[in-house]
């Protein structure tokens, strides 16, 4: 598999040379493969948002390189805008960024700036609306008449309509209720499956990350501390807890059972997985039929 993004010794310092100098990202090197779904976790202030903003050139690294498809995105600073169409970014609480008269126009805004028009534009908007399950009749409404969850999906559709090769979502489910979270998450998974695009998901919800990510990046006080398969990362529960993170409850339960001498695997991520493991075990021991 080829890598779409490569970070080489990437660092960023806020307010360099001032008394408020603060190192936000220190010497991060990693490779992200094409078509992967990667989770990024870390407590507030760990540098994960700064890292994400360097991936599409919103922030210029203090040192180090961001390679997109093998090419340093800052080689030609004047063309940095084109990078932002290739690496789409959905910020936290994106619903506050809606501004157009209709949902359709709002979704189309980024794609028009990218240079799409006519039928191509229409198709891009409708596809994006479909991916985020916005009903066609909503497209003519004002974005401000939508419900909270719909607004958020409309804002995400605006980025999807630009058809970015890499989609970065910063806390897409924050503030949504369990049902809204569930709907949005399954749409992200569907988008990722059907398009085969690379998706980066920044989240505080370990349950969400555990369910959908192929690999997980863990940031702590500006440094990359883990980058591994999701089950491997969550198998290191003690280390995660020592840096202010936690593992999903289900992972913790299975780990404790394992420590108690019951033969279950490490790094179990979902309730479905746990149910099938434990029910097989119970059957084997003749405790259920």
């Amino acid at each position, binding site marked *: 598999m080829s890598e779409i993004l490569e970070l080489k010794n990437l660092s960023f310092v806020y307010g360099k040379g001032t008394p408020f100098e603060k190192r936000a990202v220190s010497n991060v090197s990693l490779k992200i493969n094409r078509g992967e779904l990667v989770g990024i976790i870390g*407590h*507030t*202030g760990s540098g994960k948002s700064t890292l994400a903003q360097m991936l599409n050139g919103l922030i210029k690294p203090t040192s180090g390189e961001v390679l997109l498809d093998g090419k340093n995105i800052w080689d030609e600073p004047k063309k940095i805008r084109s990078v932002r169409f290739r690496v789409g970014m959905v910020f936290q609480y994106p619903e506050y960024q809606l501004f157009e008269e209709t949902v359709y126009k709002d979704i189309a805004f980024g794609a028009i700036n990218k240079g799409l028009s006519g039928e191509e534009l229409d198709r891009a908007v409708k596809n994006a609306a479909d991916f985020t399950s916005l009903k066609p009749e909503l497209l003519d409404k004002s974005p401000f008449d939508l*419900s*909270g*969850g719909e607004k958020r999906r409309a804002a995400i559709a605006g980025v999807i309509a630009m058809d970015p090769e890499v989609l970065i979502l910063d806390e897409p489910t*924050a*503030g*949504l*209720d*369990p*049902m*809204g979270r*569930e709907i949005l998450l399954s749409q992200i998974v569907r988008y990722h499956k059907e398009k085969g695009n690379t998706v980066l998901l920044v989240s*505080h919800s*370990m*349950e969400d990350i555990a369910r959908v990510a192929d690999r997980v990046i863990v940031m702590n006080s500006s440094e990359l501390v883990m980058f591994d398969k999701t089950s491997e990362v969550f198998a290191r529960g003690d280390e995660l807890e020592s840096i*202010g*993170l*936690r593992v*999903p*409850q*289900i992972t*913790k*339960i299975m780990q*404790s*059972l394992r420590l*108690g001498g*019951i033969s279950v695997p490490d790094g179990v991520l979902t*309730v479905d997985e*746990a*149910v099938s493991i*434990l*029910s097989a*075990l*119970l059957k084997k*021991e003749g*405790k*259920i*039929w």
Partner: protein
Amino acid sequence: MEFISIQDVYFSYGDPSEDPNAPNAVDGVSLEIRKGEFVAVIGHNGCGKSTLAKHLNAMLLPDRGKVYVDSDDTADENKTFEIREKVGLVLQNPDNQLVASIVEEDVAFGPENLGVEPSEIRKRVDKALKAVGMYEYRLHAPHKLSGGQKQRIAIAGVLAIQPQCIVLDEPTAMLDPSGRSEVMNTLLKLNREMGITVILITHYMEEAVLADRVAVMDSGRVLTSGTPREVFSQVELLKKHRLDVPQAAELAFRLKGCGADIPQIPLTAGECVKILGEVLS
């Protein structure tokens, strides 16, 4: 003794003269909250829980039915300010609730408005900041604090009014896991050590299981209420209304469905491990 009594309350945001069929945001809720209780209210967005919360300190008045706070009717305008001193409200976004540029001034804002003596304000501010564990930050700028710290400042601001009850509307929704536990530990401490009645509206089931009582709302009504164990044992009902249950409860419930001998539905990881350990040994 009931501290807050909600009696068959109906409320609609629509104007009944324009639209007689406007849906009720709160649709016939009755609930009693005793002094010193810690009650969690759960339910998905639009179920009416925030609307109900605003009835508890007379920010909204019922269309029909009554809300009594410490035996005073919230519809009695003469009692409005008294009620708001007794019941403080903390909202979801900490950035929208902080008004001053220094932490201690922000906490002093409430008592200043009540016309409390300056020397008394000083005492109350210090006490409130100590109660939420933010005393060392009293001279800091609120906007430079973390989300969990900001939310604790907002709680201190309410405490400085010396309420008997605090209502919190999803205070941890915008926080990271450590910020969430900071706020939760603060609330438990206020409840257990200072005897303050806490009504916590939340989406996080792991917070709800720590309450004395849980009320589940759906479509403006109370679907069920009881101790966390009584409520979260009804896994099917909660799932049907697309609410979360703690993963520990879901795992045990589903294994029980497979025929495993699970004596009771666990609420926490520790309980679940203990029960499953016994079943599997």
